C-alpha cells in the first residue's frame, strides 16, 4: 500500500471514529431524553417545543396532555395539576398548525393518557401542510424511526448540547457552564419541566400586558395597510377540511380519551378589528365556529368550553399584550373556568355561546384616542 493510500485510509478511519464518538456521546447523554428518562445526567430542556416535545412524550409520566398555540405557551404544568387534579404534560407549540398539533397529540396518545386539554381556535386550521414539509418540525423524532433516531444521534448540534450537559454535571465546571446557560451558547437552558416556556419570575408582566399595548396592536392590525393580514388563509372549506382531518379524526379514533376543548379568550378587539376592517373574515370565523361547535357537540368524549364570551376577561384590555395574547393571571383564570365547567357549550344548543359573542362584538364601540 502506498503512503498516499495509507494516509487516505487513516483519514477516512479517523473521520468515521469522530462521527461515531459524537453519536456515542449523544446516546449516553440523550439530551432530549428520547431513549430513556435522565438518570446519568441532570435533565435539561429546550424551549424549542417542536423538538423538545418528542422527548417529553417519552420521558415524562402524565395522564393529561395540554395542547395549543402561543396562547397557551406560558401555562405551568404545576398550575394545571393543582387546578384540575391531574398529572399534566404541556405540549404547546407556538404558531402551530392543526396538523402539527394533531400529529404530536397522536404520538402522546400512544402513552394512553386519560385526558386532553386542547386550546383550539380557528387560526390553527387556516393552513396546515403535512408535517414532513415543515422545515422546523422533526417528524421522524416522534415516529422514532431509523431516520429520526439516526438524525438525532448523528447530529453535531445535539453533540454540542450533550457535551455541555456532560460538562455541567462535573462539579468544577458547573458554575462556569451554568453562567453560559442563557439559551444563546447553550440551547437546553431549562432545568425544570415546569419552566419550559413559562415566563420567568423577573419578567415585566405589567410592562407587556396592558391596555396601551393591546390598543396599539388593535390600531396596527386595523390599519388599512395591514388589514389584509387579518384575512390571510381564511378559506372556509379548507378550514373545515383541516378540522375534520386533524381534530375530528383524532377525537373519533380515541373514544376512550376525554377531550376538554376550549376556544381561548381573545380580547374583544380581535373580533372588532375583523368587524371593522375585514367583515368577510369575521363571517368565516363565525361560520367556522358554528360548524365546529355543532360537530364537536356530536362527539360524546368532548366537552367544549367557549371562553370567548367571558366578558370580564375579554373586555378588560389590561389583560392583553396585543389583541389575542393574555397574561399569566388569565392562564390561572382559564384553568379555574375549565375546572368549574362554567362555560361549557350546551350540546343541545351548540350555537348559543356564538350568538352571545356576536352580540358582544356588535355592541362594542372602540373609544377614539
Amino acid at each position, binding site marked *: 500500500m502506498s*503512503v*498516499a493510500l495509507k494516509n487516505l485510509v487513516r483519514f*477516512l478511519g*479517523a*473521520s468515521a471514529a*469522530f462521527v461515531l464518538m459524537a453519536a456515542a456521546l449523544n446516546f449516553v447523554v440523550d439530551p432530549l431524553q428520547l431513549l430513556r428518562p435522565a438518570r446519568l445526567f441532570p435533565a435539561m430542556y429546550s424551549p424549542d417545543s417542536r423538538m423538545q416535545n418528542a422527548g417529553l412524550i417519552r420521558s415524562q409520566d402524565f395522564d393529561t396532555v395540554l395542547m395549543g398555540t402561543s396562547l397557551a405557551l406560558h401555562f405551568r404544568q404545576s398550575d394545571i395539576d393543582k387546578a384540575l387534579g391531574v398529572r399534566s404534560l404541556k405540549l404547546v407549540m407556538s404558531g402551530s398548525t392543526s396538523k402539527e398539533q394533531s400529529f404530536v397529540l397522536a404520538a402522546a396518545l400512544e402513552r394512553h393518557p386519560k385526558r386532553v386539554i386542547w386550546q383550539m381556535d380557528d387560526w390553527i386550521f387556516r393552513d396546515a401542510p403535512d408535517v414532513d414539509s415543515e422545515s422546523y418540525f422533526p417528524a421522524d423524532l416522534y415516529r422514532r424511526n431509523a431516520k429520526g433516531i439516526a438524525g438525532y444521534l448523528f447530529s453535531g448540534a445535539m453533540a454540542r448540547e450533550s457535551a455541555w450537559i456532560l460538562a455541567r454535571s462535573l462539579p468544577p465546571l458547573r458554575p462556569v457552564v451554568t453562567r453560559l446557560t442563557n439559551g444563546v451558547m447553550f440551547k437546553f437552558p431549562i432545568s425544570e419541566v415546569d419552566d419550559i416556556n413559562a415566563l420567568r419570575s423577573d419578567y415585566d408582566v405589567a410592562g407587556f400586558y396592558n391596555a396601551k399595548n393591546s390598543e396599539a396592536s388593535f390600531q396596527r392590525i386595523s390599519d388599512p395597510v395591514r388589514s389584509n393580514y387579518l384575512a390571510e388563509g381564511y378559506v372556509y372549506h379548507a378550514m373545515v377540511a383541516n378540522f375534520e382531518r386533524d381534530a375530528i379524526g383524532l377525537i373519533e379514533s380515541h373514544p376512550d380519551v376525554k377531550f376538554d376543548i376550549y376556544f381561548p379568550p381573545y380580547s374583544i378587539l380581535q373580533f372588532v378589528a375583523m368587524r371593522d376592517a375585514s367583515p368577510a373574515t369575521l363571517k368565516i370565523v363565525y361560520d367556522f365556529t358554528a360548524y365546529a361547535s355543532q360537530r364537536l357537540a356530536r362527539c360524546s368524549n368532548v366537552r367544549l368550553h367557549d371562553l370567548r364570551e367571558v366578558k370580564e376577561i375579554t373586555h378588560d384590555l389590561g389583560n392583553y399584550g396585543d389583541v389575542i395574547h393574555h397574561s399569566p393571571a388569565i392562564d390561572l383564570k382559564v384553568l379555574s373556568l375549565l375546572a368549574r365547567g362554567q362555560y361549557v357549550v350546551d350540546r343541545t344548543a351548540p350555537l348559543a355561546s356564538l350568538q352571545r359573542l356576536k352580540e358582544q362584538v356588535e355592541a362594542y364601540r372602540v373609544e377614539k384616542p
Partner: protein
Amino acid sequence: MLFNSYPFIFLFLPVVLLGYFALGRRGNLAPVIWLALASLAFYSFSNWQFVALLVGSVAFNYGIGYLLIARKLRPPLRFVVLTAGVAGDLVVLGIFKYAGFLAANFNALFSTGITLHILLPVGISFYTFTQIAFLVDAYRGNVARYALPHYALFVTYFPHLIAGPILHHKDMIPQFERAETKRPDAHLILCGLIIFAIGLFKKTCLADGIQPLVSLAFGPNAPTFDQAWIGALAYTFQLYFDFSGYSDMAIGISLMFGIFLPLNFNSPYKARNIIDFWRRWHMTLSQFLRDYLYIPLGGNRHGRILRYVNLMITMLLGGLWHGAAWTFVAWGALHGAYLCINHAWNNYGPDVAPRFVRLADIAALILTFLSVVVAWVFFRADSIDTALYVLSKMADPTHIAFGKGEMAYALFVAIYAMVAWFASNTQEIMGYDHANRTVAEKLRGLRLRPLFLYATAAVLAFGILGIQQHSEFIYFRF
C-alpha cells in the same frame, strides 16, 4: 441534490467515483460519458423538469459551435451564426429569469395585470454563461474542435453545474481528454477529501451557524442600531462562508476525479480596495464579465469617462445576473460606483507617505469591508425600501438594545470576522495550484503529520455532523 447532504456524500459521490475509475480501465471515452450522465442524474434529482432544457442548451450550443469551428463560413455569416447562438442563449435565460421581473415592472408602470409564474431552472445562469464564452471564443478562432461527450461534460460537470465556478472550455476540456485523470490517484483523492471537508465545515458549521442572526436585521421586528449591524454583519459572513464553502467543496469533489477546477474565492474580505475585492470574490464571474462584457464594450481603451461608463454597465448587468430584482441592480450600481471611485482615486488621489502605509492599509481594509457590507444589505433585502430601512437603522445610534443576547451575538460575529481576516484560506492550507495542476506537493509521497491528518478528519466529521435537512446554498438562487 445538495453537496451537504447524506445521499450525496454517502451514496452518489462514492458510486460515481467507483464507476468513473472502473470504466477508466476500459478506455478514455466511457468515463467521460459516465460522468456526463452522472451529472445529468445529479441535476435531475432536484430539477428533473429542466433536464430537457439543459440537454437542449448543450445540443444547441454544440451545434452553433460546430458551425463556427468546423464549417468554413464567410465572416459575415460567421457573425450571424454567433449572434443567433448568443441571442438564443440570452432569450432562454431572459424568459426563465427575467420575464416575471419585466412583467411586474410593466404592470407597475402601466397598471396592467400580467401575471407570469415561471420557475427558475437552477444553474441556468452558470451553464448559459459558460456556453456564451465558448461561442465567442469559437467565433474568435480560439477553440479547437471538441467531441460532443467532452463538450457535454464540460457544461454539465456536476461539481460546478448549479452554483459555479463558471468554467472555461480551454481549462476544462483538455483535462477531460487526458487519460491520467481516469486512474485513481490516492493523493488527489485525499487532498480532494480534505478540501471538501473544509468546505463542508464552512457551510454546515459556520454559515448555517450564523444564519439565525440575520433575522435580527431582516426579520419581522424593527431592529435597533446594534441589532441592525449584527444582522447585516451576520449576513455578510453567512454569505462569505456559504459561498466559500461551496467553492471549496466543488474543487474538492472535482479533485477526487483528478480534475482541477479554477479558484473562485480568495479571502475577499482581506481586500484593501474594491478592485482587489472583485479579484477575490466570485473570481470566475469577474473574469467572465471582464473578458466578455467590459472589454468588448471598450474597456479602458476609449478614455477615462467611457471607462467609468463601461464599468457601471458591467456591474449593473453583473448585479442583474445575480437576480431579477431592483435590489440586485442597486447592489451592482453600488459596486460600479465603488469601482469608479477606486479607479479615480488611483488616478487622482494622493500618495501615502511611507510611514503611514500600514495605517492606510488598515483604514483601506476597513473602508472596503464596510462598503461591501452596505452593498450586501441591498443584496439580501427583499426590496429597496427594506434595504433603506435597515440602513437607516444602522445609521441611527439613538436606539440600542445591547442586552445579553446582542452581546453574545456580537461575540459570534467577532469570531467570524477573525476567521475571515486572519485565518489562511483553503488553497493556502492545501497548496492548491490550479495553473500548474498541483496540490499539496510537499505532502505527496510523505507521511502526513498525524496532527494535520486527524485535525482535517475531525473537520470532515464536524461537517458531516452539522448537516441539516434544509440548508441550501445561497448561490442556488442565482
